[in-house]
């Protein structure tokens, strides 16, 4: 099972996890990224490269499936305007081996951060806006997977 979705709308984490649990693998790992508030942030705007995004996320998932013995994975990435508390991204993996499930989950989120064509713009209460800078440590982390 490989499920990849790039969408504006929210999603049900429970449904994704239930599908992964049903694969009978023994272990399901997940990571959910949520818009962090504070500092007067009113919204995060996620721009992406529609012609590329789905194929690129798909490629990252295929890479994870060749590296770890996974029974299934599910990756959902949202775009558009998201307010604090909203989910941005979900990664779920199922495997017979808990280490494979957890490591591939970490790999996928690291790779999404540095290899998926999304850009975040912050909107603040005072009207200011700013594009989020890529963090060097994210690129280092993704490269760390070799």
């Amino acid at each position: 099972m490989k499920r990849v979705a790039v969408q504006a709308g929210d999603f049900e984490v429970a449904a994704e996890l239930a599908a992964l649990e049903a694969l009978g693998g023994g272990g399901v790992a997940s990571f959910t990224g949520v818009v962090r508030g504070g500092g007067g942030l009113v919204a995060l705007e996620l721009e992406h490269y529609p012609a590329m995004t789905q194929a690129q996320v798909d490629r990252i998932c295929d890479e994870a499936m060749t590296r770890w013995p996974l029974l299934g994975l599910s990756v959902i990435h949202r775009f558009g305007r998201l307010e604090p508390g909203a989910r941005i991204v979900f990664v779920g993996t199922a495997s017979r081996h808990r280490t494979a499930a957890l490591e591939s989950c970490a790999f996928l989120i690291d790779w999404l951060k540095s290899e998926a064509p999304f850009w975040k713009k912050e909107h603040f209460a005072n009207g200011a806006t700013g594009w989020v800078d890529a963090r060097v440590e994210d690129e280092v982390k993704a490269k760390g997977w070799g």
Partner: protein
Amino acid sequence: MVALTIVYFAWVRERIGLDEEQVARPEMGATVADLMAALAARGGGYAEALGDATRLRAALDQRFVALDTVIGDARELALFPPVTGG
């Protein structure tokens, strides 16, 4: 040969003021960096957006490439800052 489509994202798009445009296909052997320099030479938003290549990344036909990659017969070039998804 058909024109080359260039698509811009994030602050590159905002500074240039365009989502996308068609340009004459650069001469054979030209790299992404060569085209970026030519576009920056237009001045204004182009210079602001594309003047510092170290801050930019590119994709040719929806695949990430290094800036010294030859454009060749690619149909679509994307120029953007480093990605910040996830």
